[in-house]
């Protein structure tokens, strides 16, 4: 039955079956990664740009299909690909995707990357665009086999393939959409890489390092310390919270470094101005997305080493979290 279907099928049908899912999946991928690219101002609408890019990607997938046709001498080679077929998809995807990306970045200079884009050493191209075709191609070719599999019969009973595809697409949209929204709904004071914002464990950035001196006797040996970093507009809120809950942080040294002119003070708290951001730099505080001074805190252990730094624009509402991290600090 299947053989008869194949014998009648024209290669154009096979190419169409590959092109449509290739366009759809690559469009989703392009949308997801577009925030990691620096585009020229005349790029226009992001949707249009991603559509154009995904059209190019779909053509590359067709090239992989043509490569498989040459290797396996059949236009429908992807229906039962085996190890060699998958190798063609993945290796072909890596080579084609990598070559096009390298040319676009280094020769044609069509785009550049934001700092958040992981870059492949040596090639100096983004990891995500490199992996794009290698990861999506097997999925594209699997989707391309669905129409043929739908026609297939097993002892007269139809398969539940349509249901499976519906469930998969529903899950892809129902999870992808909120993820996309959450990914783009970030605040200016957030860390550009959210993985380093409030990670909840000590030494997330690597080995501890000696804390810079904040003031005379701060940090003091044998005592834990927390240094809050704030902008002038957050200063009053932080002072109010510390006044309301004076003992929440226990017996630790507390300092507040304000990026600008400091107007507040509080008993038991070292309140200093960090106008040039030198102190924040000394504590290796991340720069927020807006590129301004950090809003967050750093924790110093009893041996004077910085063990935890994080941006946290909502820290006045989350002193309990600071207490938890102080509790874990030796």
């Amino acid at each position, binding site marked *: 039955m299947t053989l008869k279907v194949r014998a009648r099928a024209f290669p154009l049908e096979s190419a169409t079956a590959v092109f449509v899912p290739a366009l759809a999946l690559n469009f989703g991928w392009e949308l997801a990664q577009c925030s990691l690219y620096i585009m020229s101002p005349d790029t226009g609408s992001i949707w249009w740009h991603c559509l154009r890019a995904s059209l190019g990607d779909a053509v590359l997938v067709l090239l992989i299909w043509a490569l498989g046709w040459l290797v396996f001498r059949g236009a429908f080679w992807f229906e039962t690909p085996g190890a060699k077929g998958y190798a063609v998809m993945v290796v072909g995807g890596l080579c084609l995707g990598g070559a096009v990306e390298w040319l676009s970045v280094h020769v044609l200079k069509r785009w550049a990357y934001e700092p958040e884009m992981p870059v492949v050493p040596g090639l100096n191209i983004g*990891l995500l665009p490199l992996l794009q075709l290698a990861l999506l191609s097997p999925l594209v070719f699997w989707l391309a086999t669905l129409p043929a599999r739908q026609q297939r019969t097993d002892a007269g009973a*139809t398969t539940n393939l349509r249901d499976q595809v519906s469930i998969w697409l529903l899950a892809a949209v129902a999870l992808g959409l909120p*993820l996309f929204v*959450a990914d783009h709904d970030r605040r200016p004071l957030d860390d550009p890489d959210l993985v380093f914002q409030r*990670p909840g464990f000590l030494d997330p950035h690597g080995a501890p390092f000696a804390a810079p001196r904040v003031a005379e006797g701060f940090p003091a040996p044998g005592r834990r310390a927390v240094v809050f970093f704030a902008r002038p507009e957050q200063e009053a809120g932080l002072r109010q919270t510390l006044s309301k809950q004076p003992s929440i942080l226990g017996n630790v040294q507390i300092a507040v470094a304000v990026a600008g002119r400091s107007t507040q003070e509080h008993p038991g708290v070292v309140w200093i101005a960090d106008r040039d951001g030198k102190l924040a730099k000394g504590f290796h505080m991340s720069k927020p997305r807006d590129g301004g001074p950090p809003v967050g805190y750093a924790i110093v252990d009893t041996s004077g080493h910085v063990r935890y730094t994080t941006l946290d624009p909502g820290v006045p509402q989350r002193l309990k979290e600071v207490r938890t*991290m102080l509790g874990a600090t030796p």
Partner: protein
Amino acid sequence: MSRSDRSPLTRICAWCLLAVAVEVLLYVFYFAHEARFHWFTHFFVGASVALLTMSAVSHRTRRPVPLPLLWPVLGHIVALFPDFLFEAGIAHRRWMDVFLGHLSTHFIPGRNWTWYAVSLASLAIYLSSAGDHAPPRAAVSTSPT
């Protein structure tokens, strides 16, 4: 209505509602803590592990697993368990990676989008595996008596 009177569809819908309700509650909890990023990571990781386990079970028993929506929810709860401890005042430690890589899974290149792709691939594997052993539609439809 006695337990035996309930149709299988009603039971399945009830389990689905329960699973969705749990996930919505968890999402709201993370949203309130401004930690949606973490909800996504642990959901995708927990669901991927659950789906791959379901595929193995389905392949071995030659039938789809019972209550398929509950497995990913359970996987999610295992993956996020250290966050419950954090809420109780216990900070994360490296050993908490035993909860489906609670700490290290965040640091994967591509972040949550990579786990999204992994979970969709796992879902495809499970659907394919379950579909191979699912009863044909004609067999499950109600026949006239």
